[in-house]
């Protein structure tokens, strides 16, 4: 079943000569358990696609469905609840609240959703533990490394029962080993049934996805076929490793 479905999404900013068409007739469907990467250069519309998918912004035309529910038919309150309960966001610059500890950052969305403080804290700690950050729970964001901060941000994004994870350049300025561990966490969330969309210009990051969609000038122009790792290590294959 599709957790996220975009149907004929277009987005126009400005009017007249200042008009910019950020997205043009975009269709995209992401099933439960799937990790989809959207690749494109700066200004291609990929971040707009993510904010519209996450109901942070309205499309000019087209429909967004999250778990079958059409966002355009929801009230403001229902949309806010959907964002709190079903959608997790991971941003390039982590967006952690500096005055809260790692554990408080992770349990905040649950508390905002009416979960009692004690229970929210327990769930938050468990999420941090799972990402190997149990001993950093009472540290503040500025006491954590970039890689640790992003893991806290991912714990916050997956805490509770989120069904859709949206990530914008989630490995940001992290080095490649830390970028790998961020992607491993997203892949693990997908193995638990979460649907995830990652937008990035980085091919190494995108290559963790089940499907890579290419966006250019606001349009989806191409996508990859499913990977088949078995074909790689066959000697003599054109796709085999480079020889010494």
């Amino acid at each position, binding site marked *: 079943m599709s957790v996220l479905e975009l149907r004929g999404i277009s987005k126009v900013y400005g009017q007249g000569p200042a008009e910019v068409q950020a997205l043009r007739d975009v269709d995209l469907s992401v099933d439960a358990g799937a990790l989809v990467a959207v*690749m494109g*250069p700066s200004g291609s519309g990929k971040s707009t696609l993510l904010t519209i998918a996450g109901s942070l912004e309205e499309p000019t035309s087209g429909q967004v469905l999250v778990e079958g529910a059409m966002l355009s038919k929801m009230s403001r309150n229902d949309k806010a609840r959907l964002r709190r309960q079903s959608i997790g966001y991971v941003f390039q610059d982590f967006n952690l609240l500096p005055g809260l500890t790692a554990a408080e950052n992770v349990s905040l969305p649950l508390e905002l959703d009416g979960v009692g403080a004690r229970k929210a804290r327990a769930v938050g700690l468990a999420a941090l533990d799972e990402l190997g950050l149990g001993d950093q729970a009472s540290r503040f964001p500025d006491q954590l490394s970039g890689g640790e901060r992003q893991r806290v941000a991912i714990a916050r994004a997956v805490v509770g029962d989120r069904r859709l994870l949206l990530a914008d350049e989630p490995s940001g300025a992290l080095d*490649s080993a830390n970028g*790998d561990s961020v992607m*491993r966490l997203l*892949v693990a969330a997908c193995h638990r049934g979460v649907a995830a969309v990652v937008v990035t*210009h980085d*091919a*190494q990051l*995108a*290559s*963790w*996805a089940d499907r*890579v969609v*290419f966006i*250019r000038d606001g349009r989806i*122009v*191409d*996508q*990859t*076929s499913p*990977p*088949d*790792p078995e*074909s*790689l*290590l066959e*000697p003599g294959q054109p*796709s085999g*490793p*480079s*020889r*010494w």
Partner: protein
Amino acid sequence: MSVRHALLAMLSEGPKYGLQLRQEFEARTGEVWPLNIGQVYSTLQRLERDGLIEPDDAADDGPQKGFRITAAGEQELASWLRTPLDLSLPPRDELVIKILVAWQLPGVDVREVIQTHRRYLVELMQQWTRLKEDQAQSGLGFALAVDAELFRLDSVMRWLDTADSRFRHAGTGPPVPAVPAMPRPRRRATVRP
């Protein structure tokens, strides 16, 4: 050639047989580069001919011939390890040639040609990443070999992204008639170990 030097490196740890060398080579390179036993024996013959290894007389008489490294071999190995590869001259890259040709050819959308190659590269990278993901416990050698492949493909991808962006900004007008010659980097006379 590095199979030659990889064998020398393994022999510098002590005398070994051909079959043993093949197994160790594959284990150390994460089994990403399978090595033919014939290639091992022909490389050992050339190393012996060049005086870099010699038969190991101390080995038991048996069907397999053991080898050990010579002083000249030790010297060759030390020099190879510390000599940077000669990367000063750009290789004749078929992809670069293809994109430059596509750009100049009437009726060809060079950005479409670029996209075809990008999709292929990302599909390859997905396969390598999947191997890395599935075989997280396969050891450091495997992870490093896969990383090397991913970085190599990524560098090609970045060049294609840059080319795409340059073509986008340049518009799709008629191609420029003459391509200026690529400046040749000066080649260093010698590389000191």
